[in-house]
């Protein structure tokens, strides 16, 4: 799973959000490192929706502009959970090996 996809799903795990909300949330989650733009974001949302990982929550009109809110589907939550587990297992391994090598070298 690409990082952008992971971050989008993570943003939606906190509740339904619209496009610009996701961009702002992803920026916060990634500590200002990842700033998604409309082209990339909607290409990802379209794909995630086709894959059944997210779905439309509701639509609102704000300042005569459409805002479509997306939410995670149960399948999307499960996929994100698996990916998070996988990543955290990798992180644990990396940290423990670093500690080991640090222990050997000192």
């Amino acid at each position: 799973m690409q990082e952008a996809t992971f971050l989008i799903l993570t943003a939606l795990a906190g509740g339904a959000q619209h496009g610009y909300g996701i961009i702002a949330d992803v920026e916060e989650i990634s500590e200002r490192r990842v700033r998604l733009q409309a082209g990339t974001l909607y290409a990802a949302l379209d794909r995630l929706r086709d894959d059944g990982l997210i779905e439309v929550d509701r639509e609102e009109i704000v300042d005569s502009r459409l805002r479509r809110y997306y939410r995670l589907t149960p399948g999307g939550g499960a996929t994100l959970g698996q990916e998070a587990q996988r990543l955290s297992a990798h992180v644990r391994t990396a940290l423990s090996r670093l500690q080991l090598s640090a222990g050997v070298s000192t």
Partner: protein
Amino acid sequence: MTDSNARLERRYRRMLRFYPRSYRERHGEDMLGVLMTGADDGKKRSRFSAALDLLRGALLVHTRYWWEMRTAADRGRLAVRHPLFVIRVRLAVALWLCVVTALLCAHGDWWGLAILLFVVVHLILAGRTAVRYRAR
């Protein structure tokens, strides 16, 4: 909305035409909202990168749609491979060939009757598709 904003929106709208129509209908207005919200606090450079990102997105989407159409075609689910569509095309071709034959014969070119062979082939294939479609 200021003049420059209206101009910018027109430019983004033009750029959205790079996307497949179904995608544009699904996401166009929503994307414009995001683009214009981003433009409110954006500098010229970020507008440029937003435009580049739109192109990149269009490329991604076209590639994915094309790929999915291909795999769908493999399973015979592509819209243009839809049985009803196939039958309609075959009937249209058969009809068109009949017209050509009639015109040729009207001019005394009786070899045109050979075209009727193709008409028969198209009708048979259309019939087979119809039988298979009804059997599903």
